[in-house]
């Protein structure tokens, strides 16, 4: 390895350790690392800001920005509260039926919105319904966050790692629907069945308390019907735009930005309100990460690592896919899956190119997505949504400990990977 390669690895590893251990704020670590890479001339302004392969991926940044604006407006409509209360009433307050409906709603919403937003929307109504039914909300919250991470895996926009994978791998919204969504539907069925056993002690049915849920008026949750229809209309257009983006030749980021602009234009939501839910910290974190990873690309570290990995799997695509799936799951369980995927994407891109862009080699992208997204369920710190739910639970007087979450999460993550492995093998190696 050359001196510049060693230096870039040292800067990257230092920043990564700071991000993983949370010794400093993750944005500070990513920006500090990016600044050092630039200051040490391991990358330069032209590469960092304008290179498609080794710079900030503006498609990812603006896709996230557009979706955050759209979601921020949809949040104000009360749609989620309406759906959850209607579901609880339809389940007639029966605890397992309520949990099953809540996890299905959460997974469905996570496929269209980001996971953190989804759990922030479902958690308050979960507290309310559990309070009315006299149930412990903890099993419900844990099941919902696990469902959110599973559901988010299904689409390009469901989980930030997928957005990075799509951009780096040149994969479309429809590619995710075709390759990941069918498996996620099967996994969700298995997950609901497992929930019946996993949380079996939580389903105490009290007939007297059911009336308290049936007395809730879900229609009242919709505060602004006009805004609701405007938001749903724009969301439908945006989803149609994602599906058709290959045909109309428009990037998903442009579709999301057009949708966000249209929604702000036609609704009476002020610009301040529309931008209030944008997580600027997350966007800046992404930019810092991209500059750091870009420096690894520019100095040739990624080429070296890719060549070493290709040598290690000995040109065996199945071994590569399975190793990537398992490795990604384990690493994503203990570190944030966003920096992990940002780092692995250029490596996977080289491995795919080296194997000649066959269906088997393309399956490396799906292996990375399944491993990183589903592995995040294993521990309380594996995914951002897990951390958010733990915080919400503590604030509402029902704290969830790290191990309390992890003992359920590890079972679900293990099951997910055990099902993902034969899916990848069958679909891309046996039936391809």
């Amino acid at each position, binding site marked *: 390895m050359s001196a510049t390669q060693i230096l870039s690895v040292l800067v990257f590893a230092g920043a990564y350790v700071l991000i993983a251990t949370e010794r400093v704020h993750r944005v500070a670590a990513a920006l500090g690392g990016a600044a050092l890479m630039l200051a040490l001339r391991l990358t330069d302004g032209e590469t960092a800001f304008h290179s498609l392969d080794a710079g900030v991926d503006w498609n990812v940044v603006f896709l996230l920005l557009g979706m955050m604006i759209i979601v921020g407006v949809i949040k104000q409509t*009360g749609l989620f*509260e309406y759906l959850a209360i209607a579901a609880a009433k339809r389940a007639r307050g029966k605890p397992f039926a309520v949990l099953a409906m809540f996890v299905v709603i959460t997974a469905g919403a996570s496929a269209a919105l980001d996971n953190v937003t989804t759990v922030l929307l479902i958690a*308050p*109504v979960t*507290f309310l319904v559990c309070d009315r039914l006299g149930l412990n909300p903890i099993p419900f919250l844990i099941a919902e966050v696990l469902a959110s991470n599973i559901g988010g895996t299904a689409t390009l926009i469901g989980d930030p790692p997928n957005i990075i994978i799509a951009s780096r791998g040149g994969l479309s919204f429809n590619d995710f629907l075709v390759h990941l969504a069918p498996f996620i539907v099967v996994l969700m069925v298995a997950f609901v069945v497992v929930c019946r056993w996993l949380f079996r002690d939580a389903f105490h049915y009290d007939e007297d308390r059911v009336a308290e849920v049936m007395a809730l*008026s879900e229609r*009242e949750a919709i*505060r602004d019907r006009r805004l609701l229809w405007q938001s749903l209309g724009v969301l439908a257009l945006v989803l149609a735009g994602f599906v058709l983006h290959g045909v109309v030749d428009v990037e998903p980021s442009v579709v999301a930005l057009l949708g966000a602009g249209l929604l702000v234009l036609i609704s009476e939501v002020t610009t301040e309100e529309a931008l209030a839910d944008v997580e600027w910290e997350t966007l800046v974190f992404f930019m810092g990460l991209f500059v750091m990873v870009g420096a690894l690309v520019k100095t040739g570290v990624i080429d070296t690592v890719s060549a070493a990995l290709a040598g290690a799997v000995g040109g065996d695509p199945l071994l590569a896919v399975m190793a990537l799936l398992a490795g990604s799951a384990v690493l994503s369980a203990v570190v944030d899956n966003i920096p992990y995927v940002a780092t692995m994407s250029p490596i996977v891109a080289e491995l795919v190119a080296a194997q000649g862009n066959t269906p088997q080699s393309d399956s490396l992208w799906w292996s990375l997505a399944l491993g990183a997204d589903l592995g995040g369920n294993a521990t309380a710190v594996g995914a951002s949504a897990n951390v958010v739910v733990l915080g919400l639970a503590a604030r*509402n007087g029902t704290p969830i400990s790290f191990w309390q979450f992890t003992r359920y999460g590890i079972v679900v993550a293990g099951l997910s990977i055990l099902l993902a492995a034969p899916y990848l093998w069958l679909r891309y190696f046996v039936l391809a």
Partner: protein
Amino acid sequence: MRARDLAEEYPLVQLTDEALTAARLIAEQRRPGVVVVDADGKPVTVLPGSQVLRFIIPGYVQEDPSLARVYDERSGAETCVRKLEGRTVKELLPPKEKRYELPKVSGDATVIECAAVMARLRSPLLLVSDDDTVHGVVTTSHLLEVILSATGKAT
């Protein structure tokens, strides 16, 4: 006019009294809050009505305006009252480190001095005392009445 001239008799509750008693005092006498005293009768803090509401309305409902609308009036009220049953006044108060500073002035404080303390502490009540002698309590409504009267703007 001085604080001791403005002070009125005011109901006091002890830290160990039932939370429902404090809520009833505020409700039945349309008070903005009550003064809380310890076992020796020494004022500890003021319990405003808004703090009682913060206790009975769950945090997730306070943060989600859509959820606040879905309760029907009767069962919503029953839920609120249930939260007060079996609780003491002490449990209604925020944790000690977040507890409101006792809004207190001496008997010879001026009208504007009283107003300044209430404005700074956002308190609807002001305790007037000298050493161990409690003269009474000044309410926002009484204080505003005095201020408006002084300028001839009161109706």
